[in-house]
Structures are given as C-alpha cells and as structure tokens.
C-alpha cells in the first residue's frame, strides 16, 4: 500500500471537513470582524444530533440514504437554530462593545453548549451505527471508501454553491456590501441585522454537514469533539486568510493534507520517537508559523482603502 497516496486521500477528506467548518469562521469574521469561537461546538452538536437520529432510525428499515438525509436535516435545523440564537444572545447586544467582550461571551457559549451536550448525551463516546456500505475502491495502490468519496464530493458541491451564492446573487452582494461597509450598506436599503443572522445560519448549516461527516468518517462522536475540531478549522481559516471565502477552502484542504502527511511520516521523521497520534501538533505549528510569517494568510489580498 502506498502511504503517500493514502495520506493524500485521507488529507483531502479531512481537509474538506475542515474547509466546511472554516467557512463558518471566515464568513462571520468577514461580516462583523468577530471570531465566533463557539462555532466548533455547533459542529459537535451537529455530529451528536445526526448520530442520535441515525441510531434511532438504524433499525427502522428505512433505506440508508433516507436515514442519512433525515439525520442531516435534523442536525442542520438544530444547528441553524443555535447559530441564530448565539448571534442574538451573545453577539448582537455587544456590537458596539470592546472587541474583547464578544470573545468572552463566545467562550461562555462554548462552555454552555459543551455542557448541555454532556447532559444530553453523557460523557461517553458514541459509536456511529455501521449502516453505511463499507465498499472500498483501489486507486494508485491506496484505498478510498465510498463514504470518503461522498464526503469530498458533497463538501465540494456545498462550497461551490456557497461561492455562487456570495458572488452572483443579490443576497451575496448584500453580504459583501455589509462586510465592506455596514453603514453604507444600510443606506442602500440592506437590513444588516438580517444579513448577519443569515450569515450565522448558513455557517451553522455547513457546520451540521461537517458534523455528520466527521462522526460518520471516524465512526465516533462525543461532547468534547468540538473543541479541537474548532481550533483546527480556525487555524485553517487563518492559514487561508481569515475573512476570505476562497482562503477558508484552500486553508482547510491544505491543513488536512499537512496533518495527514505529517501523521503518515512523523514516525519515520522522529525515528519512531513520536507516533501518528501526535498529528494534532501540525495544526498548531501551522497556526504559529502563519501568525509569525504571514498573519494575513495565504490569500491575504485586501484592497485596504475604505474610500
């Protein structure tokens, strides 16, 4: 088996998931200059809800496709409601406050979401029911499962859809206008509160999809998973250039690849001293490196003048 190709495949899958989550961070940052640190927990809730629905319906005799679709719809609805409420409760009242204030409420919301999840689902790891067909395909000496193919395709489609929405629709123009200059956007008749709410809701829907993907791909979910995943996706957003949509996609995929390749070779590189379970360190090397050498991220283009 070819480790290199295999890790590229794993990296693409992981990277697609990071990218979906990173988009949530970057859209919110782009529109209100705020880092929604509770976003990782929204992914976790999405994963938990989806997994619970799949569990409940696993023996119902419904076709697998329908089960997944229902789970996804349920997760998306719950996450969208949470995203909407988080903005209303934790951020909107603080829009004119010091930048640190919403950061603190974000941490507060994270803790609340995590502990609510702990109360609802307990501290244990939950296994994703094995309802998905375990078909694997050989490709260049590596294997890729149908699930992995589906993850990459669906993530790609969602990102393409988001790009079209943002760049080619009336709503997307209003979103960009709000991010460039909210006051002027209002003068044009844009209700910026609605646009901001919609941004949170869209980001949360992407988070729900990502949550289902993570739990299905790793066959596991638990109440604490949002923390690390959120940090990684945030890193991906910073790597691409926070506030930049294409940057979040690029940063997500790159980070996934870096992690997967790092995990694949870290044993060889350190003479067996560090094993693949150290893969998490790569994200943080990347974050520190970006912050030191290129704080504006890879696609940090900004027409800076607010003429």
């Amino acid at each position: 088996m070819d480790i290199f190709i295999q890790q590229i495949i794993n990296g693409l899958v992981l990277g697609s998931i990071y990218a979906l989550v990173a988009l949530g961070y970057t859209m919110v940052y782009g529109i209100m200059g705020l880092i929604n640190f509770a976003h990782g927990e929204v992914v976790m809730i999405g994963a938990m809800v989806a997994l619970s629905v799949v569990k409940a319906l696993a023996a119902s005799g419904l076709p697998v496709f329908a089960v997944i679709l229902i789970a996804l719809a349920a997760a998306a609805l719950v996450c969208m409601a949470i995203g909407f409420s988080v903005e209303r409760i934790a951020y909107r009242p603080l829009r004119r406050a010091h930048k640190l204030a919403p950061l603190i409420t974000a941490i507060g919301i994270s803790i609340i979401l995590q502990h609510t999840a702990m109360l609802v689902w307990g501290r244990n790891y939950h296994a994703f029911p094995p309802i998905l067909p375990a078909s694997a395909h050989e490709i260049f000496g590596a294997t890729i499962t149908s699930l992995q193919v589906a993850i990459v395709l669906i993530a790609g489609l969602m990102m393409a859809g988001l790009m079209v929405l943002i760049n080619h629709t009336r709503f997307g123009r209003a979103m960009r206008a709000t991010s460039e200059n909210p006051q002027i956007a209002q003068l044009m008749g844009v209700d910026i509160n609605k646009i901001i709410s919609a941004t949170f809701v869209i980001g949360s829907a992407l988070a729900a999809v990502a949550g289902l993907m993570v739990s299905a791909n790793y066959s596991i979910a638990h109440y604490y998973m949002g923390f690390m995943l959120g940090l990684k996706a945030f890193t991906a957003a910073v790597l691409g250039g926070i506030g930049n949509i294409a940057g979040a996609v690029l940063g997500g995929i790159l980070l996934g690849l870096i992690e997967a390749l790092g995990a694949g070779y870290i044993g060889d590189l350190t003479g067996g001293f560090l094993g693949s379970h150290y893969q998490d360190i790569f994200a943080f090397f990347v974050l520190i490196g970006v912050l030191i050498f290129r704080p504006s991220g890879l696609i940090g283009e900004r027409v800076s003048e607010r003429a």
Partner: protein
Amino acid sequence: MLEVTGLRVAYGGIQAVRGINFHVNQGEMVALIGANGAGKTSTLKALARLLNAAGGSVRYCGKEILNLPPHQLVSAGIALVPEGRGVFPRMSIVENLQMGAYSRRDNDGIEADKEHVFSLFPRLKERAFQLAGTLSGGEQQMLAIGRALMSRPKLLLLDEPSMGLAPLMVQKIFEVICAVAKEGMTVLLIEQNAKLALEVSQRGYVMESGEITLTGESGALLEDPKVRAAYLGE
C-alpha cells in the same frame, strides 16, 4: 418636502449641531455651506439615520423619519452620497450600481437606469467591471452619485461632492448634478466650496459651529458681504 426643526447632534459631551431649522421644497436645490467642522456632515448623517439625533424632528413628506431604521430611508425615496464617496472598494462598478438599486425589484427598470447612469458618466461604462477601489477619486465620486440615482430617489443628499477633485472633474460632476436637478430631483447640497454651491442652488443656508447663521436666496447670499468675507476669500 423636507422640514428640519430643532435638530441637535452630540458626540458624547460635544454638541456638533445645536438645534437647527431648515427646509427643502419639492424640486428645489438647496445648499448648506460652512467651514470645516461646522456640523454639515453631522446634520446629514442624522437625516440619513446613520447616527441618532440628540433632539429635534425631521419630517419628510409630512412623516417623521428620525424613528425609522436606516435601511428604510431609501425605499422612502431618500438617497445619500456620503462624504468621502463610500463606494464598496472590492466590488465592481456594476455591482456598486446594483447595490444602489438594492431596494428595487423591477429588473428591467434597474437595467435601464444603469444605462442611464452610464450615459451620464461614460467613464463608468468603460470601466464597468473594474473594482471600485481602484478608481480615481473623481471616478469614485461619479460612481457614488450614479449609485444613489439607481434607487430612483425623490430627495438626493450630497455631502461635498467636490471634495479633493480637480477643477475639471468638479465641473463635470456639477454638470450632472444640475442636469439631474433640472429633471425635477430635489437636492440638498452640502459644500465647502461656497461659490460653486451658491451658483447652482436656489436657496442657501450658512452653518457655523453647529448653528445656522444666515439664510436666503443663493444669489443674495453670493452678494452678502459676510459671506464674501468668510467663504469667498474677499
């Protein structure tokens, strides 16, 4: 059409506008002139609901607008060309114009008005897909005016359209403003360039340290010795 009474604007403890009264009649072009820091922009921002007035009332077509949320002004028929132009730098000219028409849904009308703006400002047409942030100051001013026209306003508020522009560009911009006014648009023009503003308008108000100190026919103000001394450098 526009009736401002006792309007006050304060920033913290600083009173920028101290209870001013003025009005603009339907179809009129009215100039509001004054030196730097007189409170002109503050007045306009309060009218456009970009900041909360500390007191007073602004009636537009008989209705109080100081309690409207800012995004509803444009559908009421008020458009502002802000100080410093305020174009969206990372959007193209066409997208900026589309944003101007955000409150409208009649796609055919929007398309026609876009062509109308292009006919007023051919420079914009040549650069239709260029990012607004890369335009020159004069081109940005054209875009800001064009964008405001895209909402088909009844009342156009202009904040120092001549600021920072070369004389030839100022002339070009004012030709368009006058043409638009001739077609029946009601215009409130704020300017530091008092001579120019009084030459194109019918009536004028002079603002000093947050208060209106002088008003009258623009022609008469141009002849007024105090105005000549303070604003026309004589």
